[in-house]
């Protein structure tokens, strides 16, 4: 079973990675000093005492960008299985056009976002 063999190796790499990080953190704990003081544990704010609560004014723009990404990412996932078959016999130009229509709709969405000024900051 090539398939299961391949992915068990991938799983093993993940385990090796976790082990590496564990060993690094554990040995770091042995090597380093631990001298906590109140000042040291303060939140760093360029040298002065922290002001206000731990929240800056954040823009909702970030959310819009990431939603744009999610929409396009779910579009992109269809590109990959499509890429493996579209040139195969029995698919060809029709399949190509189908995908272009699909992407076209989303490109219209991107254009809309552009026109509405979502992609601009100020």
């Amino acid at each position, binding site marked *: 079973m090539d*398939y299961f063999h391949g992915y*068990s190796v991938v799983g093993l790499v993940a385990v090796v990675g976790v082990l590496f990080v564990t060993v690094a953190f554990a040995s770091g704990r042995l090597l380093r000093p631990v001298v906590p003081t109140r000042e040291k544990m303060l939140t760093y704010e360029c040298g002065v005492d922290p002001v206000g609560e731990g929240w800056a004014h954040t823009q909702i723009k970030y959310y819009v960008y990431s*939603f744009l990404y999610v929409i396009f990412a779910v579009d992109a996932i269809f590109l990959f*299985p499509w890429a493996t078959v579209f040139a195969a016999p029995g698919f060809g130009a029709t399949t190509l056009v*189908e995908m272009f229509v699909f992407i076209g709709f989303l490109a219209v969405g991107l254009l809309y976002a552009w026109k509405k000024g979502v992609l601009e900051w100020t």
Partner: protein
Amino acid sequence: MNHVAAHHPGFLSPTGVEITFVLVGLATLGAALLTVTTRQLVHAALWLVVALGGLAVEYLLLTAEFIAWVQVLIYVGSVVVLLLFGLMLTKAPIGRSPDADSENRWVALGVAAAAAVTLVWVVVDAFRSTWVDLHGVVQGSSHATGESLFRHWVLPFEALSVLLLAALVGAIVLSRRDGESAGAGSTSGTGKEKS
């Protein structure tokens, strides 16, 4: 999966796949339980990551290779990030939020437990002697997925693009209205649409 595989790195024997499936399933279930019970909002999102990642492994074990990685890319890589953005923009605190749960959680527990018992009983009764054969062609390779999608599922696929477009426009409209009301006059002429 890995401890089993460590001893027989050549391949996972059929029982190996089953054992792995059950173990990962337990981990997934535990993470899901923590997702719905923890009082710390961001921790809930992170436990959700574990649950969804566990499900990706389950898909892999069911030989649905492509869907497994779609799960990682879409859910772990973007939907959860979206949720975290939502939590952070609504200022999720570090530490417990005492009122993450509502008063009626015992009722909810009752409903969920009753549903679980009924459904598990039905499902086990129905599929007691049914076996999935995982040792043939990989069922969910990207090529197989592509063939079926673009041979048999073209119309829903195209409809999906319209749906995505609608969602995109909807989100932009929502966030723009917000931008105008919060930005207070950045779009000079239109005026406020609310008090």
